[in-house]
């Protein structure tokens, strides 16, 4: 297949989950023999370094198949690029590439108009959009946290959103949502990394028949790692991720304070390593809270509790950081959409201790691949830590039942099966072309089928497609997204018919 992947940001410019997934999908598709390209929309302040004067789209230096996309007149309110010149350049690029598939991984900075442009440029192509976040639903950066309380929000509504943004009338939110839904209507398929976010978007109004769950896959960084390795007292906990308000470092520190004040710290003691960057994105009140907890911990229990802040890390350092801890804590206080860090923990055989919320609730199974505690409940976390410290048998049990992670190739195969299905639908007319769209089948490049798999996955491409097709038939009518982790090798796809 000829595939154009479109992402917000690029891992080479700034790390981030969505762009990492898009990039790995792009790389995997190249490895599997697809004719793939990546277009990464960057922020305006990246233009000076990564852009060229006057250019909307520039090739990434040293790369034949990767482009940076600098959209002009971007409007955050409507996730919209309000510039025909920008959109024209994007449209022309797509026209030249003649893809079978254009798959977007975001709309922020890319602009929803780029989706429309893609449809016009490639009338017969499959257009997909993976929704890694909830910005279309929630104007508060997609966080679904109420302002200013940061309480969890269970559903957007015009009047509810007006409470977060009193300066914007309820009607604004009605129109914003209507516009986004209308433009997103050009997509053939919406992909979600978790059932949680799929349900949020179908509740919001995306047509369930277009919605598919495909978990994020990742390159396994722990292939050479001794997954059984652990400390004797299994008392070493690690936090990995961004040091920002929603990630719950404060919950960890509060749990430690509870242990210290209640004098419940096990004799083995407890070690917590904070591996977190981007602290500058945290709010000042949050950082002050963290500092207060840190000071309080020092005063109460300087010897039994060790908290070490190790700062940010890159992919090459993950193995070394994982080696020094037994458990990976994911105490997120917001709606975690997928939790790439969970996958990273499992790469290295680390059981996960996660908030019982959103995608974490679905992915983490108590006693199987980790443990859960009620989100934002430091007391529960403290109790859980006490129960786990020193229980080597428990750790080994969980460690042994952690399944290998869903790889980048697994993820790609899931995507390919979906693309192929919708490509067939477009070609066979079950998806109607709009007036003005031409049936350009004969102009498109003959799809390149995936090469036969090598060692990791057993199925041939044709088998995979057959499996995918069967899977669709089996679950299409009403079945909810599966609650258990999808099985490796299956087309990781379920209809989110909620």
């Amino acid at each position, binding site marked *: 297949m000829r595939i154009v992947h479109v992402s917000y940001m690029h891992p080479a410019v700034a790390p981030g989950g969505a762009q990492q997934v898009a990039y790995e999908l792009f790389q995997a598709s190249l490895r599997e023999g697809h004719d793939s390209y990546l277009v990464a929309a960057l922020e305006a302040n990246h233009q000076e370094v990564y852009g060229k004067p006057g250019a909307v789209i520039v090739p990434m230096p040293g790369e034949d198949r990767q482009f940076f996309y600098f959209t002009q007149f971007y409007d955050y309110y409507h996730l919209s690029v309000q510039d*025909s010149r920008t*959109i*024209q350049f994007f449209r022309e690029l797509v026209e030249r590439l003649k893809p079978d598939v254009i798959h977007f991984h975001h709309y922020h900075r890319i602009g929803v108009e780029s989706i429309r442009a893609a449809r016009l440029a490639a009338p017969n192509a499959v257009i997909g959009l993976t929704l890694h976040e909830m910005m279309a639903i929630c104007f508060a950066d997609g966080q679904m946290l109420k302002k200013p309380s940061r309480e969890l929000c269970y559903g957007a509504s015009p009047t509810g959103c007006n409470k977060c943004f009193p300066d914007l009338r309820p009607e604004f939110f009605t*129109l914003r949502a209507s516009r986004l839904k209308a433009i997103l209507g050009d997509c053939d398929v919406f992909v979600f990394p978790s059932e949680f976010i799929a349900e949020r978007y179908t509740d919001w109004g995306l047509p369930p028949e277009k919605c598919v769950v495909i978990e994020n896959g990742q390159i396994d960084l722990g292939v050479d790692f001794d997954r059984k390795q652990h400390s004797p007292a299994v008392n070493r906990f690690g936090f990995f991720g961004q040091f920002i308000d929603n990630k719950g470092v404060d919950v960890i520190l509060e749990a430690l304070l509870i242990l210290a004040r209640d004098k419940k710290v096990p004799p083995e003691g407890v070690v917590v390593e904070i591996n977190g960057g981007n602290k500058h994105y945290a709010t000042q009140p949050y950082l002050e809270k963290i500092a207060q907890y840190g000071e309080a911990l020092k005063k109460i229990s300087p010897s039994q509790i060790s908290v070490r802040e190790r700062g940010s890390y890159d992919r090459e350092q993950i193995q070394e950081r994982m080696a020094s801890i037994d458990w990976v804590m994911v105490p997120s206080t917001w709606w975690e959409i997928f939790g790439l860090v969970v996958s990273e923990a499992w790469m290295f055989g680390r059981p996960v201790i996660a908030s019982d919320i959103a995608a974490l609730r679905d992915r983490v199974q108590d006693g199987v691949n980790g443990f859960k505690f009620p989100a934002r409940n430091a007391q529960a976390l403290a109790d859980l830590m006490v129960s786990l410290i020193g229980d080597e048998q428990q750790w080994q049990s969980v460690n042994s039942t952690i399944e290998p992670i869903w790889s980048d190739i697994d993820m790609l195969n899931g995507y390919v099966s979906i693309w192929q299905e919708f490509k067939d639908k477009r070609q066979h007319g079950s998806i109607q072309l709009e007036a003005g769209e031409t049936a350009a089948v004969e102009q498109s490049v003959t799809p390149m089928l995936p090469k036969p798999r090598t060692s990791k996955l057993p199925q041939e491409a044709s088998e995979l497609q057959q499996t995918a097709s069967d899977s669709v038939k089996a679950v299409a009518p009403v079945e909810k997204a599966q609650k258990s982790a999808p099985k490796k090798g299956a087309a990781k796809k379920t209809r989110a018919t909620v």
Partner: protein
Amino acid sequence: MSKDVWLPITVPRFDERHYLEASSSAQDALKSGEVESGLEHYLRYGIDENRYELIRREPTTLAGSMERFLVSQSGFCLMLGWLGDEGCDQPRYRLIGGDFTIEFPPESTFRYARADVETSYKYGAYDYGLAAFGRCPSNSLLKQSMLLQVNATAGSLQAKVTPELVSDKRIMDTLLEVITTCQAHAGVESVLNNFLSGPGGLTLVEAFKTHVAMATTGHYVQRFGARKVTHSFVTVLFGSTEPLLIQPILFREAGIDVGEWIYVCNSPEDASAMLRCAKLISDLYDVMITIVVMNDNAGFSAANNVAIEVAASDRIFVINPDVYPLKAHAERVQQILASEDLGSTMWGGLLFYDDNHLMHSGMYIERDAYVRRNSLNRTEGPGSVPQHCRLLRVEHFDKGVPFDEAWWRVPREVPLVSGAVMAFDRKLFQKIGGFSTGYIYGHYEDADLSIRWREANGPVAIHPHLRFVHLEGQGSKVRGEFYRGAFMSNRHFFTSRYGELFDNNLATLSKAAGSGQ
């Protein structure tokens, strides 16, 4: 009138015979017994009327200050200040230059409360504030320092005034700001009606029309995706381009062919963004968009008139920027667009809050009475506030009621239709001169057009298939108190024009005319 309470007054040089010979009214009063002597008549009337220059008058100096004197490019002038003339008769306001004198008639002035003056000068329910507005035939005469003379029988004030030279728009907006923010002990509705229904109001409308002429001259028109169309949507935007990015997409998604969509940009600072967005939406969604850029905010009427003039078709659909399709009813709208001759009727639409509740279904006229409040101001004589006034108000049928499909199977005549959705034939619209620019910026021009349409063209009715949702407040973004002042003023203008007509046509203009559910 009890003469017992009068203070005894002696006028040694008063000549009874001479006074009676000179004053026929004194003779008549003496004959009728109203007065007992020529002296009594002189004391009661003659002194105040200055009929017999026997007593030398020494008028007191009135407290007061003329704080602003604005003169515009076209000769409009606005004087703002305060005057402590409580207890005096109506003063005369004169501007005296080297070789000329200009007078503001009382009807060109109004008085309003000044809390600061009441605090620092004299406490009490007296409207010390003074606004005087007029237009000099010469554009240049007032652009010099002059002497202001305020003369009442009992007192006077003289002050040198130096004009602030401003644009017509600024002088108009300044007065509108005063109108919208002022309060009056006598009752602000009554005070303003006295001013706005007279020469002051006429001058204000004239100032707006002068501004409109400037704002519309040399307007810029650009078409995107031009083609032959059978109907034109017209939407006026001010302070926002957002509707341009949303309306065509949602109408199209609903299956409505909008033909040509004309957006009038009444805020030229948004023109670049609007032209950019128009090209974008036209390219992406294959819709014809025409942008008309005004030089300034020309108001709803003039903007629509210009847009309709340049429209590529004769079938005009005026659509507010906060009007959107209802998917369940879009097919009916499309049927009208695709087939129907609009005829000689001016059509309005059914506007909804949501799928099931009407926002309104046509309009009618109500009239409210406002009685002058008790204050220390004069209640008689020129310029004084009448005891009461009545103002027309436009009201909506079926505000917020559940929709009754059975009632709306046929078109229904109504007194007025809202400018939020209007459909008509361009030639008939232009035959009656289009929307009136006698309303400042916006409001009441739709009611005005409805009345004139019925008189000259034909029925005014609600088309049961023109169904839309009206998201009030998501249209143009008005900024500034003067827009509220314009809205207030327009009600007075509308009343001046149609108050009598309403009284004589209750059956066709009031709620009694129907046709709400």
